[in-house]
C-alpha cells in the first residue's frame, strides 16, 4: 500500500504540475486547488496507464479521498 501511495503522489504532482503537493490518504479534492473534475479525468488516465488497469465508470466518481483510490488500486493489483 505504501508503494501505491508513493506512486500516486508522483502522478498527482506530475499531472497537476505542482512539485509541492502534500498527498496523504485522507486528502480530498477540497484540499487541492488544482484537483477539479477535468484534472480528475487526467489523474484517472495517468493512474490507469501507470498501474496497467482499467477502472469502472462508477468507481472513479465514488472515491472520497486518496486513501480510497489506493484501496481500489490495491484490489485490482491482487
Amino acid at each position, binding site marked *: 500500500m505504501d508503494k501505491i501511495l508513493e506512486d500516486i503522489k508522483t502522478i498527482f504532482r*506530475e499531472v497537476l*504540475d505542482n512539485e509541492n503537493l502534500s498527498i496523504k490518504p485522507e486528502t480530498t479534492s477540497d484540499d487541492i486547488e488544482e484537483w477539479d473534475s477535468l484534472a480528475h479525468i487526467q489523474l484517472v*488516465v*495517468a493512474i490507469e496507464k501507470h498501474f496497467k488497469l482499467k477502472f*469502472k465508470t462508477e468507481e*472513479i466518481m465514488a472515491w472520497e479521498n486518496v486513501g480510497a483510490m489506493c484501496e481500489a488500486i490495491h484490489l485490482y493489483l491482487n
Partner: protein
Amino acid sequence: MNFNHFKKNLKKDFSAFQKVRVAVLGDSATQLLVTALRGYGYEQKIDFQLFEADYDQVERQIFDTNSEMYHFEPEYVLICQTTEHLSKKFYYTTHSERAVFWQNHLQTLGEMCQTISQKNKKTKIFYLNFYELNDGIFGNFANKVNYSFLYQVRKINTGLMELGQELRNLFIIDLASLLTQYGHKNSFDSKFYINADMVWGLEFLPMLAKRISDTVQSISGKIKKALILDLDNTVWGGIVGDDGWEGIQIGNLGMGKAFTNLQIWAKELKKRGIILCVCSKNDEKIAKEAFEKNPDMVLKLEDIAVFVANWDNKADNIRQIQEILNIGMDSLVFLDDNPFERNMVRENLPEVCVPELPEDPAEYVSFLQELNLFETASVSDNDEIRTKQYQEESVRLSEKKHFANEEEFLANLQMEAKIQPISKFNVPRVAQLTQRSNQFNLRTVRYTEQDIEQIAKSENFASFTVSLKDKFGEYGLISMVILEKKQGFIFIDTWIMSCRVLKRGVEALLLNEMVKFAQNDGLQTIIGEYLPTAKNGLVKDHYQNLGFSSKDKIWELDCGTYQLQKHFIKHG
C-alpha cells in the same frame, strides 16, 4: 504527442507569438480540447486566444447575433458536433424524417455559416466531420438502408465536402480520416463520455488539436512548398554507387515495393504543386543514371526541380537549393534515412522540417501520410507546372551569364505580359498568392478566395494581375496589386510578386499602369505602405526605389510629375 506535455505549455510565455482568435462551440465537453489546442499552439508559435462557449450552445451562439461569441470577434469559429450527439438527435426523429436527416443537418449548418458570414465576412468556420458509427441496428445491411444511422452519417460527411466547395469560408477538419488512422477504440473512453460527456480521450486530443492548428497555419500562409529527397535507401533501396542503376531495389518485387510507394506518393505531391528536389551524397552522373535508365523508377529527372548530388555537407547543399527556389527555409521538408544526416541538418538549419523516418522503409509512406505535412488552404491550376518553371529558371540563370549587361539580357528574354483585373478565372491563383507570398509582399494581408471575390465585385477597389511569359516558357500569373480608391488618392492595399520574376521589370510595368489608371480616374496621388514582417525585408526600399517620397510611415507618389519607368516587357 502527449496531452500533459502540451498542458504544461500553458504556463509559458506566449507574448512573442502571433495571436489567433478562435471561438470553440461544442455539443459536448470541449475544455480539454481547448487546453490541447492552446498547448499545441505554443509548439507552433501561435498564441491561440480562445473563447469557449457554454456547454451545448452551438445554435444559440450562432443564431443570436448578439451572443458572447460575436462580441469576442473570432477569426475562426470551430464547431464541434459529435456523432455521439448526432445519433441521439437522429433517434428522436420519426421514420419519415430519417431518409432526409442528412439534408436537414446540412441545411442548418449552411444557415449557420451564412449567419456567421453576414456578421463578418472574414470569419472562417471550421467544422469537424463525423465518426462513421455503425450502431449495430442493421449490421452491414445498414449500407443498403437509407434510413439507417450509418447511411445518414456518411451522407453528411460527403455532403460536407460539397458544402465546403460551395462555401469558401467553410473548412472541414477531417476527424473521420483521423479516426480511421488512429482507431475509435483508441480515441474514446466510455467512462469519461458517461461521466463528463467527453468524447475524445486525452491521448487523442493533441492529434485533433494538431489538425486544427495545421489548417490555421495553412490559411495564414505557413505551408510546406518543397520536398527534398535523399536517394540511397530513401528513394530506392541499396547504394547506387555500389549496386549500379540496375541493382537498386525498386519496382514490384521484395523491398523495392516500399520505395516505389514512396516515389508514387512524392510524384502525387509534385502534381499538386510541391517542388521535388534531390540532395544526396553521390556522384551526380551515377545518381542521374538511375533516373534515366532504371525502368522501374516512378520519379523521372523532369520531376526534380533542383538536383544536387555531391560529397559536400547536406546543410550547405540545402542552403543552395533554398537559394535557387527562393522560398523560406521553413517551407522545406527534408527526407533522409540516415539519422546522422538528419541531425546535422536539424542542427544547422533548425527551420527545415526533418521527419524522423522509421527504420523500416516499409513504414515510410504510412508514417509520412500521418504527419499531415502538406496541409493547404487552396489549390490552383498553376500548381502542376511549377516544377517546369523552376527548371526553366535554372536555364535562364545559365543564359544570363552570356550577356554583358542586365539590359541586354532582359531585352533578349522577349518578355510578354498580360495585364488583367481579377476575374473568376484567376480568383484561386490570386488568393493563393496572397496566402503563399512572404518576401515580395508589401503589407502581407492574407485573403481567401471569398475575400478576393468580394474585392473583385467592389466598386471601391481596382486590381491588376500580371501573367508573364518569355522565350523559355510561361511564368503564369506572378504579380498583382489591389488598389483601394480613397478620397482624393489611391491606396495600394496589396502589392505582391512571385520571387521567380525578381528584377525583370514587372514592378515598373505595374507602376506605369497604376499611374495611368489613377490619372484616368482624375486622381493625382498614389499612396503605398510597407508593413515589415520577419520575411519581407526584400521590399523595404521598394517604394523609395520607384520614386515615392516618404511621409509619416507611408509613401506618396505624385502622378503629375511621374516619368514612365523603363522596362523590357511587351504588353497588350
